[in-house]
């Protein structure tokens, strides 16, 4: 009877465990955002805060475009295209910063209520704040990957950090996919 031998030091083995670890982290993080979504519907029901609709659509579009460029960067790296990878990563990073400015710098200033103004204020600032914090960490991750990419640390064969960064960035996009309608679109406006 032949027993299969697993080389626990091989890149292939490590890649498998790294992927599992990242997805478990994402799953646990998703519960935090899931809890916020449940709180939003429990506390606010079929109402929503008065927010700038155009700005909401614009920041959503910015995050969507950033996801496209992140995918483009990862695909390019997987095929050994260093130039497109660096361009895509940098564009994603810049769009992430623009998104942060749009939400924290503009929307928070325009909102006609504060975090202490009832359930609407508390939920809006908690949800957008928690999401913005993740965008900020994603931007830092992108900057690290971009710098390492410029040093030529990634190849088509070995680029786990790029894959991890892309997966995390897309997760941030998935969270906003649910937060955008929950905050901007569903329910009747109050306040």
């Amino acid at each position, binding site marked *: 009877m032949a027993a299969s031998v697993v080389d626990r030091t091989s890149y292939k083995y490590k890649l*498998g465990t790294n992927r599992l670890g990242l997805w478990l982290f994402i799953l646990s993080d998703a519960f935090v955002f899931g809890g916020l979504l449940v709180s939003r519907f429990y506390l606010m029901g079929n109402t929503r805060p008065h927010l700038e609709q155009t700005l909401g659509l614009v920041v*959503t*579009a910015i995050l*969507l475009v950033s996801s*496209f460029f992140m995918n483009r960067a990862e695909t390019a790296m997987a095929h050994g295209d260093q130039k497109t990878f660096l361009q895509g990563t940098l564009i994603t990073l810049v769009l992430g910063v623009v998104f942060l400015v749009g939400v924290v710098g503009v929307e928070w200033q325009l909102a006609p209520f504060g975090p202490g103004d009832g359930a609407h204020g508390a939920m809006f600032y908690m949800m957008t704040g928690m999401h913005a914090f993740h965008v900020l960490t994603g931007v830092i991750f992108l900057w690290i990957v971009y710098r390492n990419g410029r040093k030529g640390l990634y190849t088509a064969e070995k680029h786990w950090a790029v894959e991890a960064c892309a997966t995390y960035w897309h997760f941030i996009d998935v969270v906003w*996919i649910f937060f955008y309608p929950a905050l*901007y*679109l569903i329910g009747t406006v109050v306040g």
Partner: protein
Amino acid sequence: MEDKKKQALKFGVTVFIMLAVLTLGEYWVAIAGGQWWYILVGIALLKAWFVIQHYMHLPRLFNEEENH
């Protein structure tokens, strides 16, 4: 290799177009008839599925062949 890359990049564009159309769709649904929350939830789930399946490559987690 070059053909495979072009094909993969093209697929990324297709997914992006689908996501953009769905986003505009949900905005229109909300503006046109604010009470259709179930349609908005459906669109959000569809968009999330597109991103998780094609941008986050969830199947890679279960398929050892897709290694780099």
